[in-house]
């Protein structure tokens, strides 16, 4: 059974964590874009984490948006990371090769820790 997507965001230090749950596809992608795009130009943040805990499904349009987000953030030397992806999401990201450009971590804490190490 499909679940309605919920998107929220919080600022942890200089990292925006975008929490996504449910199913996100072309029909509700604008909600994700509406939540994330205004934050991209925020100079108080230098990294973004897409928290996929509770995210059940994404389609190719969402993958395309993640690639776009990666490109946009890279241009302003900001980082993008993905955390908490279940096996379905992880398979999709791996299949198209996004995992080779966007680091994927099991948890937000580990992602934040990797930032501190760099």
């Amino acid at each position, binding site marked *: 059974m499909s679940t309605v997507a919920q998107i929220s965001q919080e600022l942890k230090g200089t990292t925006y964590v975008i929490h996504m749950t449910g199913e996100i596809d072309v029909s509700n992608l604008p909600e994700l874009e509406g939540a994330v795009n205004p934050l991209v130009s925020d100079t108080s943040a230098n990294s973004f984490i897409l928290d996929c805990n509770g995210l059940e499904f994404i389609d190719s349009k969402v993958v395309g948006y993640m690639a776009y987000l990666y490109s946009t953030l890279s241009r302003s030397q900001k980082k993008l990371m993905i955390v908490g992806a279940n096996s379905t999401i992880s398979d999709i990201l791996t*299949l198209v090769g996004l995992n080779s450009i966007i680091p994927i971590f099991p948890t937000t804490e580990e992602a934040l820790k990797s930032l501190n190490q760099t």
Partner: protein
Amino acid sequence: MKFIRENLINKALLLFAVLVTVVGVVGIILNRMEIQSVSLNLFLAVLILIFVLILVVFILDVIVPISRVHKQMVNLLTGKNYKKIEPTTIDEIGVITHFFNEITHDLEKISYDIKERRRMSSELDIAAQIQKDVLPKEAPEAPGLDVVAKTRAAAEVGGDTFDFLLSPDGNQLFVYIGDVTGHGVPAGLIMMMVDTLVTAMVYRGVNNGRDLIVNTNNLLTPRISSRLFMTSVMLRWDKNAQKMYYTGAGHEHVLVYHKKDESVEAIRSGGIALGMIPDVNQIAQEKEIPLEIGDSVVLYTDGITEAKNNTGEMYGVEGLLESLKKHGYRPSAESIFDNLTRDFSNFVGEYVQVDDITMIVIKYLGKDAATAKIKLEVSTDEAQVERKSKLWGWS
């Protein structure tokens, strides 16, 4: 007819008031002129005048406006030129006039929309034909290989593609499959770009899959939105060495049937989708697929593995692998293809196709085997009717 009746009564009363006034004034004048009586003829003349005036008012207020509206309605219904009518009265006829103007305005808009839709549909047909023309109709000779490839678009224009290209020296055969994000015209435009780029590069002498993927990506990425991308697998068949290589660009698995132990293998294509990042030089890799005589390789797009049945269950790579395990032993690529698609069609049943689907089956027959020309088919569906698996003609 409330407003018409009231209008006529008001005008009759006005006429009557005017008449009374005129009679009064005439009476006063006659009295001053000391004329004692008026002839009957004069009385009748005045009466006739009143009726004539009422008739004129009726004709001007009712008959003329109705005949104007009627004339334009007849023109509309008989397909002649009609024109907008300016309402002259605020009554039922005015309402009918206004209604006529609104209806004809809407009709003109609908008529324009229909013409525009026909024009767009015609252009889509042309685009679909151009796209079909780009897909290969004949394939180069491929000694040692038996190949069947088919594609079917979910809309007029599709985002799936495949091609067979022979290197200028004739030693390398490239077989590739591609799937652009989504489907329809945007996907079709990108598919055309990639086809053109790959073809041009092969003819210019790029002779390995990795360089084709890297160079195609370098040229494609700056020219498209980073939200759009194309996943692909590029196979290279070295005719002399009888070896198969693959380079992945974030595509679905490469499926291999091993005749020796009747096993199946799903190899991750690896790499990253074309158009995602400007440089894939560090990511793209060409690897060998060790093949023995009787082995088969299957390339497909996610329209097959993500197809659902009536209960919402996806076919998945598992479904395709299971089917390949059952039918991979068959002697020709065509018989394997037909059985794979029959199993697929049986699974999805009446579920309507929502994505483009493409599949390529390659069977390695050995260098000395008599080889037929590669069989190609671009499925066409002239009626563009609802796409159910039973209508696909794949089984």
